[in-house]
Structure formats: C-alpha cells, structure tokens
C-alpha cells in the first residue's frame, strides 16, 4: 500500500504542477462535464452543455464567480455511450486536488450506469428530465437528484393538460388515447402512471410501439387512423419525432391532437417536419425564448465578446439551450447555498453539494432575481423528495417558434409519489438498503 500512496502522491503532484500553469492561485470551483457533441444526439448534447457552459461563463464574467470563487470545468466526450460515459465519470472524478461535485450526463443510459458508483464516491448525480423515476425518493437514493420532473410526473402532467383542454378531468371519461412510443428504455417508463390514471379517470389507452430508430411509422399511423383516438401521446426521441409528425399529416391525423413529451419538444424535432408540425403540442420544463433576462445577459456578457460556446449563436434561446441554462442555474444556486452553510468564498465538496441540492429552494422571487422567471418551474427539494417540482408546461409549435399554451401543470402528486415510494421500497429490499430517516436529517 505504501507504493500506491507514493504513486498517488506523485500523480497528484504532477497534475497540480500541470494545472498550476493555467490556473491562478485564486479559489476555484471545479466541475466535470460529461458532454456529447458528436453522434445521433449531438443536437441535444451541444445545446444543453453549451447553455450550461455559457451560464457559468456569465457568472464568471458578470459576477466574478460565486462569492469570488471562479467556476472552472473540464469536458469529456461521452458520445451518448454508456461505456464511454463511465470512463468519463472516472476521469472527471478528480481534478488536481478537487473532486467532482456534480455529475450530470444528460443521458438515461449513463445515469443508470453510474448511479450506484456515485454513492461510493460521494458525488451527487443530477438527472433533470431523465433517468429512473423512483430515484425521486431521496430516502433510498440520497445521491441521485431527478430534478424538476421525472418521466412519471411528466406522464401525469400530460394527462392533466389533456384534462384542461377538455375542460375538466372528468371529461376524460370514455376518451380514447393512443400512446405511440419508441421502443427504448425511457419510452416505456411512463406506462405505470398512464395505466393508473386511465383507471382513475376512465379513459382507455392503446400503446403502439415504434422500433428504433423510428424512421418508418406508416403501419403505426394506419393503426391509429383505424382506432380514431381523441388524442395521441407521442413518446419518441430524435429522428422518430419529425417522422411521426410527417406520417400523421399523411394519414390525416391533426397535429394539434398530438401531445409529445419533452424529448419531442425541441426545435430540432419539428423543423424537419415542416408544415406537418404546425399545431403540435409538447411538454417542456424549460420553454424556449430569448426574452428571459438571463439569456439577454448571456448575449451581452458572453456572446458580445465572442466567447459563447455555441458555434451557431442563433441556437441561443432554443429549447435545448435553455435546458442547459437551467442546469447551470441549479448548479450555481446549489453552490451558493453550500457556500452559505459551509463557508463563503471557498470551494465546496461533493458532500456539501449534496446537502445543498437537498435543501435547494428556488421560489418565484429568487428566479426573478436570477432573471429566469418562467424559464423553469419553482423548486423546493427535501430529504424525501429529490424531484422538487414535477411541474410541466406545454407549448405549441406555430411553424416558427414554440408558444406556451398552458401554465405550469401539477402532476397527480399523490398517485406519482405512491408509485415512487413503492418502486423505491422494492429496490431497497432487493439491495438490502435501509432507507434514511428523514426526521433525523438537518
């Protein structure tokens, strides 16, 4: 073991020495970003991580960091591939003397692949809008934060939105809803919630699978035409989104009766479908737009100086980009909170970060102060609830841009939460985990 220690010290000395050249001696806060900028999902990866990096640049440029602590980061290319993601996780873990404080792969697969490692390494795992829904139970999964909304909350919010459109949840009785889903892991994640809600409100669902990658859907839409459903819920991703909309138009199904989840609701999903996408409604926890003051500030402080991360500055304010800014806001706000508790002006550790995430509260006032009112829902996390909101907003594509058509819609909390607890308890039992007692947490 002595040898190992000597080796580690040597490595540490070497890396510190290497980093010393580029980094000043001022306090710095490191985070590792497992981005993906190539491959089939590059549109999502460049948008989200671009927005996140731009927000950190804004904080450095405008405020001089968080309480004087400069934000620094290191990227690692995952290619949206699980094995590469694990390698990145390990590589980003240590940077000089600092440990990574937050790992957010923005990929359901990588989230699954590392979600047991994070507890050992004491690095919080952030999975906004992706990942396992039952990780919202913070008693069983203290290190995982499926923030803002899980797939289950989203499914419930979609049904809630349909109820609103019909003029009341009880009007859903007897309605026929087709669920067109891409046959991959997240595509089926919403089913338990949809099934229970169908029972509760008396509508019927018909689930129709599309094989990956979903660029041929003629048969499925013919089936839908025969069924004559009142609505179609679209759970597809990537290339299958424009295909669905185009095929729907060809078979004569009106686009405004199709409601997509948030992975169908970016500009990249509808623009290729052209006219066929007009009127399509999709969920969002991060509406598009450049009118938010925080986006304006990014334009002013980052892009005006030519330091923006997006190669195409027109994408600033797009859905994926704003999602990235949302990630950045959560990260920076958690840092602020952790510094307030554990020492202002000092970098924080993964454990302190976890505490801050768990106690994070972003109300309307705070969001307005950041300049992100309406960019994301208000958040209030707790030891037991690692989701914090669950609210989803719906927006409609008018042929040129996304227009909000609903306010933030609450999911059926009682139902979703009972499912989360049930599933988390089953996991705890399988793994022999004793859930934390939240009354003892401070």
């Amino acid at each position, binding site marked *: 073991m002595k040898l190992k220690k000597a080796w580690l010290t040597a490595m540490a000395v070497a890396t510190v020495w290497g980093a010393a050249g580029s980094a000043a001696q001022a306090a710095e806060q490191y985070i590792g970003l497992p981005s993906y900028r190539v491959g089939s999902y590059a549109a999502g990866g460049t948008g989200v991580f671009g927005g996140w990096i731009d927000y950190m640049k804004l904080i450095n440029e405008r405020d001089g960091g968080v309480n004087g602590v400069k934000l620094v980061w290191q990227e690692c290319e995952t290619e949206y591939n699980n094995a590469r993601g694990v390698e990145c996780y390990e590589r980003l873990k240590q940077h000089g003397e600092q440990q990574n404080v937050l790992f957010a792969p923005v990929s359901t697969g990588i989230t699954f692949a590392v979600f047991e490692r994070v507890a050992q390494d004491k690095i919080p795992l952030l999975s906004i809008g992706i990942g396992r829904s039952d990780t919202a139970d913070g008693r069983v999964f203290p290190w995982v934060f499926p923030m803002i909304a899980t797939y289950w909350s989203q499914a419930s919010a979609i049904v809630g939105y349909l109820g609103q459109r019909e003029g009341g949840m009880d009007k859903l009785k007897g309605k026929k809803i087709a669920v067109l889903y891409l046959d991959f*892991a997240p595509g089926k994640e919403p089913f338990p919630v949809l099934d229970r809600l169908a029972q509760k409100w008396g509508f019927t669902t018909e689930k129709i699978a599309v094989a990956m990658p979903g660029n041929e859907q003629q048969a499925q839409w013919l089936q839908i035409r025969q069924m004559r459903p009142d609505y179609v819920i679209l759970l597809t991703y990537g290339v299958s989104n424009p295909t669905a909309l185009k095929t729907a138009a060809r078979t004569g199904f009106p686009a405004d009766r199709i409601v997509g989840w948030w992975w169908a609701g970016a500009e990249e999903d509808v623009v290729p479908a052209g006219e066929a996408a007009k009127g399509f409604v999709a969920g969002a926890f991060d509406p598009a737009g450049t009118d938010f003051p925080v986006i304006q500030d990014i334009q002013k402080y980052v892009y005006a100086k030519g330091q923006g991360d997006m190669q195409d500055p027109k994408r600033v304010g797009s859905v994926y980009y704003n999602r990235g800014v949302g990630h950045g806001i959560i990260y920076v706000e958690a840092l602020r909170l952790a510094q307030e508790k554990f020492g202002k002006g000092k970098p924080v550790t993964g454990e302190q970060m976890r505490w801050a995430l768990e106690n994070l509260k972003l109300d309307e006032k705070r969001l307005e102060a950041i300049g992100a009112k309406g960019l994301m829902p208000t958040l209030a996390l707790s030891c037991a609830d690692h989701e914090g909101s669950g609210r989803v907003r719906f927006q409609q594509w008018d042929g040129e841009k996304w227009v909000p058509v609903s306010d933030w819609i609450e999911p059926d909390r009682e139902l979703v939460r009972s499912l989360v607890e049930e599933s988390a308890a089953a996991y705890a039992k399988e793994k022999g985990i004793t859930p934390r007692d939240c009354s003892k947490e401070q």
Partner: protein
Amino acid sequence: MIYREAGQFKASYEEDQQIFPIKQDRIVMAALVVAAFFVAPFVASEYWLQAVLTPVLVFALAALGLNILTGYAGQLSLGTGAFMAVGAYATYNFLLRLDGLPFLAGLVLGGLSAAAVGVVFGLPSLRIKGFYLAMATLAAQFFIVWALTKFPWFSNYSSSGIISAQRIEILGFAFDTPARKYLLTLAIVSLLALAAKNLARTNTGRSWMAVRDMDVAAEVIGIPLMKTKLLAFAVSSFYCGIAGGLYAYTYLGTVEPDGFGLDLSFKILFMIIIGGMGSVLGAFLGAAFILLLPVGLNVLMHTSVGVLVPATLASNLELIVFGVLIVFFLIVEPHGLTRLWQIGKEKLRLWPFPH
C-alpha cells in the same frame, strides 16, 4: 542480440510443443503476468483500474470469444453484443432467483446460457455462409435485445429493463473495491485466455481451422461439420457470455438491454479485425486499441488542441483522427496488430545483423 534463440535446444515433445517455445518470450510473459497481478493493483490509480484496465480485459475476453468463432472457425457473426447480453442477464437472474448461489457458479451458468442461445442461432450456419450468416446472427442481435426489453421477467420487472448487479462475494470475501474487481476480472480472463490458446492447439482447434479454410475439404477428410461449427458457436458464445457477466458485474454495475446493441457487436468485430484474426494476442491488442485510442485522443484534444478550437470541433476531430488511424493501420498491415508484432519479432531475432 537479446532476442536470440541459439543454444535453446528442445529435448522432449513437451518442450517442443509449449505455448512459448522461446525462453525470452516466457520471461516476458511471466513478467507481464506478475506485473498485472501483483504490481498493477498497487500502483495504478482507481481511474486506471476502473476505467482502463478492467474494460480492456472484459472486451478482450469478448473479442476472444468472437475470435474463436470468426478467426478460428471462419463463421462471421454480428451477434456478439446479444450473447454478452444473455450472459449478463442470465447471471443476474440465476443469482437473483437461486438463493445462496455462489457468484462464480452464477457466472458460469450465465456463460452456459449464452452458449445454449449461441448454438440455437448457430444452426443456420450449417446451411448458409459468409455475409448471409452475418445476417442470421444479426437476427440474434435484434431478437435478444428485443426479448430482454419485451419480457419484464428478465429484468425482475424494472420499468425500463435495467438490471443492477448484486454484490460479488466469493467464499465470504467481498469484491467491492476497484482493485479487487480488477483482480477478479484478470484472473478469469487469464484463465479463459489460456484455455482458448490451448483449445486452438488441440484437435478441436485444428478442425475449426480446417472448416474455416475450406469446409468441403474438411468434411471430406472426416471432420463432422455440424458438430464442429456448433461447438465453435457454443464455445464462442460461452466466452461472450462470461464477458457479458463481467461487463455487468465488475465493470459497469448497472446495464440496460440497449447497451448491448449492434454498436457493441461492431466494436468487438473491429477489435478482432484490427487486432488480428485467429490469434489470442490479437484480441487483447485490438481491445486495447479500440478502447483506449479514443480516450487518449479525447484527453489530448481537451488539453492541447481543445484550448485552441471550439469543443464541438475538437470532439469531431477526435473521430476523424480515430478513423484515419484505423485506415492507416489496415493499409500498413491488413492482418492486424498481431502480424505487426510478429514482423517485429522476426526482425528482432536477426538484429543487429540482418544479413
């Protein structure tokens, strides 16, 4: 000078038939094994153990499995990922459903399940060959991944088909740190590599090669085609199944069916093409090349060039350089890295007086 075999006489059949007939080879190999077992776990950092050495070993084992089928027996397969999936999911289910089953037994049962599935999908090989067989194994690839997502029983009713590996414990000793997991992987992989090397030198291995070179001729000299081909499928799938189990248990910890997609099968096929068909060493060299080169390039791009160019361009450059290097190696030596190594050895033997 150093690499001279003059004076090494072989006085018995055993000496003549050993795996490494040259003394220097034996010394180097022994040193390598000692280093891998006794030095690496102590000096390598966690990153190296978890993210570099363990995956290289796991993928080398999978490549070895494919090499038995494609390199030795000449049956082209695109179902490697699926056979790994069978291994991983079968191991998980055996350990989950049979209380008190030892880990190694579960792993072997997982491998055997993969072997059984491999034999079933190997049946078409009796009638079809070459690219057409590749299509048949492609069916295995899609069918198995589909079945694992379709039937929730396989993943113990997890809503997305994800399984997370149970703790590994052998005779009360927990393999829970990166170093221990690495050692376990290394032990299993070296054992199976040794077995593969020896298998290739027996009657079985020779009949595989005969079938590969010309199956009609092989049949004429009395090699039963059905038995030989199916045995190749079984052994190969067994290796892939064990690799899949290790992939889930000692490397990733949590796996989903989509992770065992066609991409993975192609990756392993590239490993044996780059490493060298029909060679055990090739599997290791190919796995290291295909896995580590992109990582190395990524580190390089984000530290040196990446500072100068935008991150998106750096990430794309990586892929371009990776592709160019593969083409370069295939042009320089179409028979893979193993052949390069052999040429190097030939030269070394004559050095410094080549004439």
